[in-house]
Each structure stands twice: as C-alpha cells, then as structure tokens.
C-alpha cells in the first residue's frame, strides 16, 4: 500500500516532476537502432518521459534527438526531409542539425544570421548494442555511457526487441521484480517455450510453488532471491537484479540465453518495454534468434510494422479459454510478455496503490518502492546522484544456482552476479 502522494510521486515522470528529474540522470533506451537503419533514414517520432521529440540520422551518420515541432509555426518535423546533414521542416523549409541548431531559414536574406538565434531542445544520442540511448538531463550531470553486458557483447550474441505497454512504467517494472508470479502465470511457458524448456531449474520451479524470498541491497538497486527446495538438503535460488531506475534481469534457465528488460516511460500511462536476450560466451543459434523474433521467451509477437503486440487490449489479448482449460497457458493469453502486460494493463493505466493489499512475499516490491522514493527525495532535496547512474552498477547478471542450505545467496554468488566478459553465466 502506498499513500496517494507517494504513488503520484513515483508514477509521474514528465518535465518538472521529481521522478522525471530522477530519470533524467540516466542514459535511457530511446529507440531500437533498426528504427534509424541508415544515413538520411526517415525521421522517427518519439515520446519519452512525456516529451514529444523527433529522432533522425543525418547524412554523416550522426544521430539527433530534438523537439518534434518546428520553432517557426509549431509544425511536426516528422513530415520533414532528412537531407544534407540536417532535418528540414516540410512547411517552410527551416532546417535543423542534430544539435537542434537551426542552420537555415529560407525566407531570410542570404546573409542573415537569424537562424543562429533559433535552437530547438536537443538531447545526445549514442548507439550501444541494438539500442539508441539518450540522456535528457542537464549536460553537466551527464554520466558515462551505460555498460550493461547485453549491449556490450558481439552483435551475434545478442538480440533486443521492444513492445508498447499501455500502463505506467512502475507497475510494469514491479512485474519484473516480482518473482512470485512465475510459477503461476508463466507455468505453461516453462514446459513448452523453446527458450525455457529442458532446464533442470524448471523442475524445481514447478515442484515448489511456495518459494521463500530474500531481498538484499546492491550498490545500484537490489537483488531479489527466490529459493525453492532442491535435492539433498539444498536450495535452488533464482536471483533477480534490479538496477535503478528501470532495468531488471530474469534468472536464466540451463544454457538458454540470459534475458531482461528496460521499462521506459513514454508518458504517465504508457511505457516502452525493451527486452533483450544474450549469451555471454557464444552466438545465439539461428533457432534461438528465430524464436525470439517470433515472440517466444520474454519477447512479444508484434503487429507487423509496429511495436504493438498482437495480443493487445483491443482484441482482449486474443484470450484462448480452451488453451487455458488444457493448461497450455495459465491465463489463456499466449506468450510470457503479454501474459504480464495483460494483467498489468488490466490494473488501469496508473494502478491505485492506496487500494492494494500486499503480502510479505511482496517484500521486493516494497523495498524497491522505498529505494526509489528515497532516491527521488535525495535528488530533489539534496542533489544526491541516485544509485544506478555509475556504469559500475550496470555490470551485473541474474543467476540460477543450487546452494547448500546454510549458504547465503548474496555472499556465495558474488561472481555469479557480476558481468564477466567471456565467462559463462551461472545457471541450472
């Protein structure tokens, strides 16, 4: 349960909001790199943290992210032309470079310097892995670029997709922290999904539906361990890292690739979910890559030409009661991603947390909210840089491991929970 004011504090991310200011201290996924595939590609409209922007890639391959609307009459630059190292408004031909600087106002005399006085808001963009990242805060606070392992391995070892989720970012993130739903909502996928099945860990998952949970602090966020009984007096641990503000990883299964998500606010009622899979030591197989493209594992099957899942609210998520009855899916919705999204969207665009009834197995969510709130307040009131900004906080992994009962996951899994280039992940 949260008080109304805290719920509003954590769910509002637009300009001038406290949590919006927090998000503006981090590099955030902006687009998939495939959305601007070549120089002078068509511009892309982007809304992120409640700001309407336009992204483009100029003739020299430089990425730009600027205010969507022309400074002249407020027309959308999406109709514009990307040409000769800039983006030209289709209305009267005003032209901007990737820094947002107006470089040409055709109606002015040739020797006029008027355009030098016109500049749109612009944010830096970098390409790391399959993602274009942006930093939307004050330039003097700009941190070093992210060092998440999925964006640093070779291209053949990683795959990223994205999907639109019609809910506030926080309830989507909370699903990524909450391990307790997996044995229920996703039980069908553990048995049949090509990116999950066959792992020994699945047996532990399905044989013990009442896991114990342990929450431990990390420098950049939290580790949430879920433990189940294994054989010979041992415990099977699944450890989920959360790096503030919006990065989570799913504990792996067998030699299947590692995966996880970024939950990026579009506005207060929508978010982008960037979903990645990668293997630290080998290329993804053609079969794995195809399965990801088809929406298996934690990816979604999107409406062609869009990033909207086929199982969306307009079609009641393609509810299949027969599959539900047969046990192929627990909820009747196909796919891990949309099983989560369907329930999170059903809560409403911003769930009213004053009315929820948490139980102690929600401790990870309780702690994550508290850490977020404290970080938001510390930044707002004292200017303290929040956890998760420093790239060292990004060098983490999820893990699945069997440990003797007396061992603590957080002490025994130090190496397993650290990104180690070229070293296989720890998984059962």
């Amino acid at each position, binding site marked *: *349960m949260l008080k109304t004011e805290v719920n509003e504090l954590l769910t509002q991310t637009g300009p001038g909001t406290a949590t919006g200011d927090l998000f503006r201290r981090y590099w955030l996924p902006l687009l998939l790199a495939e959305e601007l595939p070549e120089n002078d590609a068509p511009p892309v409209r982007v809304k992120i943290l409640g700001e309407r922007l336009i992204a483009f890639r100029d003739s020299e391959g430089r990425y730009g992210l600027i205010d969507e609307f022309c400074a002249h009459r407020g027309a959308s630059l999406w109709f514009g032309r990307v040409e000769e190292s800039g983006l030209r408004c289709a209305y009267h031909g005003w032209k901007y470079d990737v820094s947002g600087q107006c470089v040409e106002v055709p109606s002015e005399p040739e020797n006029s310097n008027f355009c030098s006085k016109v500049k749109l808001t612009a944010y830096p963009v970098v390409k790391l892995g399959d993602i274009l990242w942006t930093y939307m805060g004050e330039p003097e606070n700009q941190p070093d670029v992210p060092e998440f392992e999925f964006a640093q391995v070779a291209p053949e070892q990683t795959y990223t997709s994205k999907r639109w989720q019609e809910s506030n970012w926080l309830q989507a993130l909370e699903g990524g922290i909450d391990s307790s739903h997996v044995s229920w909502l996703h039980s069908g996928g553990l048995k049949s999904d090509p990116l999950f099945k066959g792992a020994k860990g699945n047996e532990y998952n399905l044989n013990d539906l009442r896991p114990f949970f342990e929450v*431990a*602090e990390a420098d950049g966020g939290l580790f949430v361990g879920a433990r189940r009984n294994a054989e010979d007096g041992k415990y099977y641990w699944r450890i989920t890292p959360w790096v503030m503000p919006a990065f989570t990883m799913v504990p792996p299964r067998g030699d299947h690739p590692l995966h996880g998500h970024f939950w990026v606010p579009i506005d207060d009622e929508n978010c982008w979910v960037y979903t990645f899979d990668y293997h630290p030591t080998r290329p993804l197989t053609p079969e794995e890559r195809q399965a990801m493209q088809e929406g298996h594992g934690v990816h979604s099957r999107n409406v062609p030409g869009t990033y909207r899942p086929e199982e969306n*609210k*307009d079609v009641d998520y393609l509810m299949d009661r027969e599959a539900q009855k047969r046990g192929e899916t627990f909820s009747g919705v196909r796919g891990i991603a949309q099983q989560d999204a369907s329930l999170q*969207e*059903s809560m409403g665009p911003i769930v009213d947390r004053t009315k929820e009834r948490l139980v102690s197995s929600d401790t990870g969510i*309780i702690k994550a909210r508290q850490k977020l709130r404290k970080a938001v307040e510390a930044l707002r009131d004292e200017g303290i840089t929040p956890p998760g900004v420093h790239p060292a906080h990004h060098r983490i992994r999820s893990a699945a491991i069997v440990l003797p009962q007396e061992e*603590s996951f*957080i002490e025994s899994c130090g190496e397993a929970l650290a990104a180690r280039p070229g070293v296989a992940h720890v998984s059962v």
Partner: protein
Amino acid sequence: MRPILSNSCAQAATAEEARFRIDRPIGGRAALVFALDDAAAAVVDRVAARPWSGARFVRATADTAIAEEVADADLAIMIATGDADGDVASTIARACMERGIMTAGLILGSRFEVAAAVSALRPYARNLMVTEDEDDVAEVLTALRA
C-alpha cells in the same frame, strides 16, 4: 462470445472506468512484530510509537510465551540485528507453522556483519530482507497495513 459493451472487454482498463471499481474499506492484518535482540528492540520501540492498525510489538526471549503471543496473529515479522537468537526464531517459526501464520524477517545491518543472523533466520522466515535502513521496518509494516 464477442463483447458488446466497452466495459466487458479489456479496453475497460481506462482511468475513467476505474471510477466504477468497487470501493470497499480494506481491513488491516493482525501483525505481530518480534524483536529478537536488544538492538532490534530499540528499533522496534521507536517504530511502535507510531500509530498502527493493530500491530503488536514484542521483545522475544527464551522466556516469552510464543504460542500465546501468536495465537491471534496472521503475520509474524521478526526484527533482528547481528545478535539475533536463532533458537528464539526457531520457536517463533514453529509456532507460526503449526498455525499457518506467515513469517517474515528483517535483519538490520551490513550484510557482512549480520551473516550469522541471516543464516539463523533463513530456514524460518519465508520472506527475508537484509537492510541497513532502519526505516524499512516501518515501510514494510505500512505497506502491509499492519
């Protein structure tokens, strides 16, 4: 059967439709908070001074009548520091298990300093949090409507 009203399909998940959700008072839960050592008791005393829905706070020792204390509880939360008494935790956990009472543990301190306490509580606390932030005690109790 295809839905014919907007409120009979998934599109009803709008802020406007949320106005029609049934608004019924939510009761608290009978939480029992055990301090397992003196340092934890000092924290619990400070937390207990705040208004709660019905949570009770107890300093648990080997002499405490645990079975009587937990009789009316539906949640037992053990608060400990590095000096926690594992035997008392075990007694609490057994009493709770017999009555189907959920157990949770909050261990206050750096994880290296409280390793022994974590090991002592792990078998008994279904949900365990290791934290250096004393505020987490009140935060968890508030979130659980204790």
